[in-house]
């Protein structure tokens, strides 16, 4: 376990160094969700302040985390391929799963920048501020949302190793999660036949828990606890799936010898 943690820490540190070497990169990673959140700002401008804060401010944070996670997962595989380093990460005894986990966590954290950007814009230009009545409940739900995105990034990292067009898949996945998880609207807006997809995505539940936490006395609320419980359950399933997928993918790319194919 200590060995895995070392790999995790090294991957996280390498990702941080990547960002430091390109200081504008985090801004570029979050610019799309920021622009989309600005569309939300305009569309929600006549909505009650509380609704605005719930969907625009919190939604932009979720979009930023997701976009950054996805871009990071896709780019890290893509750049490893381009620079010719991908085969070295495979011939070391380090687990790919832990390498990806270290990277994924940092990418997700960088995505929180969108939340900061939108908080500033909405406070300065619209006078809207986010008030959290249950800070502990908020922190718990936010932490789970953060983990949910990071673990989905971990899952997709395996998939990106199999495809030449990871960048294009990134875009498709990014929009699909915005649609299904209800980042900027409640999932009741979706047609009934689409909602089952939302139900199997952990961020759907954790985002709902975050929205509930702006009210007071939420910690003991059974609906809040159910949202957290479902998020945790799905997270556990994702981790198992990521572990299994990683083994399958690793075996497959070694057999097919197509890891460096661009």
């Amino acid at each position, binding site marked *: 376990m200590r060995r895995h943690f070392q790999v995790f820490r090294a991957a996280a540190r390498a990702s941080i160094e990547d960002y430091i070497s390109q200081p504008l990169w985090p801004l570029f990673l979050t610019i799309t969700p920021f*622009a989309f959140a600005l*569309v*939300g700002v305009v569309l929600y401008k006549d909505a009650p302040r509380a609704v605005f804060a719930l969907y625009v401010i919190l939604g932009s944070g979720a979009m930023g985390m997701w976009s950054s996670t996805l871009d990071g997962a896709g780019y890290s595989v893509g750049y490893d391929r381009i620079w010719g380093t991908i085969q070295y990460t495979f011939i070391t005894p380090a687990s790919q799963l832990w390498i990806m986990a270290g990277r994924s966590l940092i990418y997700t954290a960088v995505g929180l920048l969108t939340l900061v950007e939108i908080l500033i814009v909405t406070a300065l230009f619209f006078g809207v501020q986010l008030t959290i009545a249950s800070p502990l409940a908020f922190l718990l739900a936010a932490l789970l949302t953060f983990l949910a995105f990071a673990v989905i990034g971990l899952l997709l990292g395996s998939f990106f190793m199999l495809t030449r*067009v990871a960048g*294009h898949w990134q875009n498709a996945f990014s*929009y699909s999660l915005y*649609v299904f998880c209800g980042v*900027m609207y409640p999932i009741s*807006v979706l047609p009934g036949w689409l909602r089952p997809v939302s139900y199997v995505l952990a961020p759907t539940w954790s985002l709902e828990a975050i929205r509930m936490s702006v009210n007071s006395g939420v910690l003991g609320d059974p609906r809040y606890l159910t949202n957290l419980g479902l998020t945790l359950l799905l997270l556990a399933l994702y981790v198992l799936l990521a572990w299994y997928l990683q083994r399958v993918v690793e075996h497959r790319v070694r057999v097919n010898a197509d890891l460096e194919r661009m």
Partner: protein
Amino acid sequence: MLRQLALLQRTSVIVFQALYSWLDPTAYIIIKFVVPFFQMSFFVFLAKFTLGPDKLAYVAIGNAVQFVAFNTLMGVAITMSGEKWFGTLPVLLTTPASRLLMFTSRATVHVLDGMMGAVIGLLYAGLFFGVSFAQANLLTLVVVLFFASLTLTGLGLIIASLSLFIRDVNQIMNVAYLVVFLLCGINFPVEQLPVWLRPVAYVIPLTYGIEAARQSIAGAPLAAVGNQLLVMFILFLVEGVLGYYLFLQFERLAKRHGTLEVF
């Protein structure tokens, strides 16, 4: 002249194929069918919740027509940085080939494929989001889509020219697309923008294209959108000439500074 046109056609097709790595059509299918569906869905559902069901058509049509930008802004812009990325740019620019041909071939096929993107978007709008085409004037719509696609290439070519001199033009391209996406009246009318931002919207041809497309779906004849088409064409000429001028200038600068291969 005919020889030049044949050369333009061959070069355009090669440039287009290279962009999508046509050995594998997956990239094309994702960009043309999958991404537009989800992007449009997100904004349509957002509008449904915030503005109500009667605004769905407005947002769906706006999102459908802006898919021309995937090709004529981003696709065109990326062709030059692609040459740089794969190391073919210095070779390309040491040949005596016509720069005008080189420049225009970046955009030609994208104009048609951009139209195709908008048609796919409109198909989604009709099939999934209840946009009715019963009143549509199809001739006007086709002409408007052609103009919307053609005229945005001017902006795409300006950005493509930048990649001769700037290290990484892809981020500029993304920002340009987002500016177009925010300002062109796709999800809300231009009049809702702050006054100081509106002039930017009015120099982007797509602003007029989207409005003209909405009118043609409501049944407007070609003459009714004539003014918009004219403005779009004038903007295209201005931006195209500016793009070509920048292309020549940046080539000269990049050769002088030895930065053609920097990325």
